[in-house]
Every structure is written in C-alpha cells, then in structure tokens.
C-alpha cells in the first residue's frame, strides 16, 4: 500500500468517523419529538360502554349463557396462573372458589367493586390463594411497597365468552 492509498483510506475513515459522530448525537436525541403534535378531534363518536369485551381467556364450549365448566376454569388457572402476577417463590397456587354467580353477587365478594357486567348477568368468579406478587398493577411513582405481596386474589370472567373482565386483591 503506497502513501497515496493510505491517505485516501485515512480520509474515508475520518469521514466515516465524522458521520458516526453526527448520527450518534442525533440518535441520542431521536426520542424527543421534533414537531408539536397537532390537536386531534375524537374519532370515536359512539356511545361508551361499561361492559367492554375484556380480553380472551377461557375457550367457551357452547353458545349458552354459561358456556364452560368449573373444570375448564380450573384447567385454565392451572396453565395460566393468576393474571396479576406470579405466586411467591416456594408457595403454590390454590383455587379456593369457582362460582358462576350474578355480577351483583360477584361485586359483593370484591368489596363492592364493579364486576363489569349488568347486575343479573352470570359471571365466573374465581378466588385464589398464594401469596402472589400483583406486578401487573401499574403503580404510580413514589408509593410505598410497589412490590408488595397479597395472600388472596380473584379473577372474574364473562360466563358466556370466557373473556377475562378483571382481577384484584382481597383483604
């Protein structure tokens, strides 16, 4: 390799280095928006519902109001555990209750919280004992014990679709 070739190689290398520097600097700031977001009107013009579909969970067997069995629920829990988080290491999940009851009855079991279905609609209430780490709960910044454990929890499923409607802690 003669001197001229070396000079060219060095120049190209320096250009690459300069480009890298520029890109690295702009890349570091890439996450910060560069333009103001324009105001956006609401696109959805329909009515809101307190009874969203939930998220798919248990596969229904029939098209009946109660479309699966307690055994199906037990199998689902065995495979999927508690939606809110894992059992504390060294412990085992225990299914304490699987109840097909009205939404109103389920609400009474969860300290009056809504079960997300009309009062007389059948839902599937499942009570579990751990203890569990409910890590899926989005805790705000600065609270105490963000990784606290809870001994008893529940899950509620739509009895017809098998979709999960919610979960939470019990005293």
């Amino acid at each position, binding site marked *: 390799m003669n001197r001229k070739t*070396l000079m060219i190689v060095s120049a190209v290398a320096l250009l690459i280095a300069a480009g890298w520097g520029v890109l690295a600097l702009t890349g570091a700031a890439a996450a910060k928006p560069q333009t103001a*977001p324009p105001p956006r009107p609401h696109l959805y013009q329909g009515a809101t519902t307190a009874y969203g*579909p939930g998220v798919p969970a248990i596969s229904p067997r029939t098209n009946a109001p109660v479309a699966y069995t307690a055994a199906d629920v037990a199998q689902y829990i065995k495979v999927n555990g508690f939606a809110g988080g894992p059992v504390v290491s060294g412990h085992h999940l225990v299914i304490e209750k699987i109840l097909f009851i009205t939404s109103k009855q389920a609400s009474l079991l969860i300290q009056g919280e809504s079960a997300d279905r009309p009062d007389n609609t059948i839902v599937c209430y499942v009570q579990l004992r751990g203890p569990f780490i409910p890590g899926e709960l989005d805790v705000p910044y600065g609270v105490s014990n963000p990784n606290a454990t809870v001994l008893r929890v529940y899950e509620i499923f739509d009895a017809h679709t098998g979709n999960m409607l919610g979960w939470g802690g019990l005293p």
Partner: protein
Amino acid sequence: MPKQVQRSVSDTAKTDTTTSPGSRISLAIALAVSFLAVSFLLYPHVAQAYSCNVCHGVVIWNGSQWGAQTEAEVVNLTCTPADCKPGTNYVPHVGNVLWVINANDSSCYPYDACWVEAGYHTLTNAQGTSTSNVYYWADVRPGNNNFHVHTKGNVQSGDLGNDAWLNIDEYGNTSTWEIDIIPATSGYSGTSTNNSMNPNQIQMGMELTGTGGESANTSYFTYNIWYETNNNSWHYQENAGSTHNDSPIESGWYQKPASNGSNYGGSFYTSCPC
C-alpha cells in the same frame, strides 16, 4: 541473529511504505476509525441492558383536585413474549397511564396511597408465547389490598397513531369516580364506587417493569386538564409540575404548559427505545 533480523526490517522499510512511522500512524487511525464505524453499524441492533423493577417516566402535579384528564396518543407497546413472561418475582410490562392519587394515606394498605388509573399496557400470557396491548382502568381504594383491575379490551390497529381520551373525575363529593377511556375505535367507561380518597396528586406517563425485550414509540399526552374540588370546574394544566424519569424510559415536556392555559396544558412525551 538479532542483527540479521534488524537488517531485514530495515530492508523491508525501504521497499514498503506501510512500515514508515507516518504510515503506521495512518494505518492505526484507519483501523481505529473502521472499528468505530463497525461499532456504530452494530449499535442500533443491540438492545440496551436495563433492570427495571418498577421504572417511571412521569410528570407529577401536587395539589388537591377532583380528577384529571388527558389525551394520550396510542402507540404500539412492544413486550417480546419470551422476555415478558411473568417471572418469579415480577411481571414485565410497559404502559402509558393517567393516575389520580391520594398520596401518603396510611389507610390504603400496602401502598400508603390510594388511586384511580386509566390507560393501556402490555399483557403477556403465563407461557410467554403472546403479548397484547390492553385498555384498562384500576383503582386502589381505602382498605386492605383493596385493588381492582378492569381489563376492557384489546387496542385495535385503528387506534394506533390516534389519541385515547383518558378521564378520571369524581361525581361531586360522592366517593364515586367516573372513568372514561375513549380511543379512536371504541369507548369504555367505568365507575369506582365507595372510593373516599381525597386526591392530592396527579401523575401521567409511562410505567415499565422488566429487563429486556420492551419498547415503545413516542406518545404525546396533550389537552391536560385537572378538576377543581367542590365545584368540578376544569382547568388546563398551567405549570410543568415536576418530572421523574428512570432509564431506559425517555420522557419529558416537549412543550411546557403555558401559564394562561393557551397551549391546552402542554405536551408531555414518553418513549422507550429500550
């Protein structure tokens, strides 16, 4: 023998310019720069290493109020299922959230805070084989482990890039809170009853737990509003509050709230190029 080697090197120097001092320096520079260039080319493809037991990129406003609202842009939140499989001591996930909080309340065990929250986050199944983005709201009411999460439905492709209106406000002084989540293709509502909390803080932004496989495009929170106590009148946020950001989340004000509310409470952004 040493003399012979010395002569050999000297002879070579006369015929090959790469071994002259100047040439060696040039070669070294070329090699070093090439190494840097290769490193740069590889850099974007290497995920950041991070450890988030619970990380936040949020803005915080302190002060009594009866609720808040924002328009949070819906972006795709990624949580690679294999990386986000619920672990033995935490649940990897990422979300964009609005919280209305009663901070420092010992009647709310175990968090010493009660709150109502609404937003969307990732949910990975127990097998670590699938992850979905889900709209939800939740409350932590006064009492013992009195927390409840309501999964309303999956984020739809038509929602991405549009806003979801998130609203949390109390019906007067009734211990009953209305929650609204209205993205582009659907509208969900909820009611938090028997909730006697007296909120003294608002937070909004990103929460992330995990050690890898997560990412989120930039989302803007605009039209930021708080509700005044007692008469439920609303105001645009007129100050920047305080912010908190844990890496790898990137968050902050793109446009701080104007003191006269003229920019609709400013524009706060979150992202995670994790």
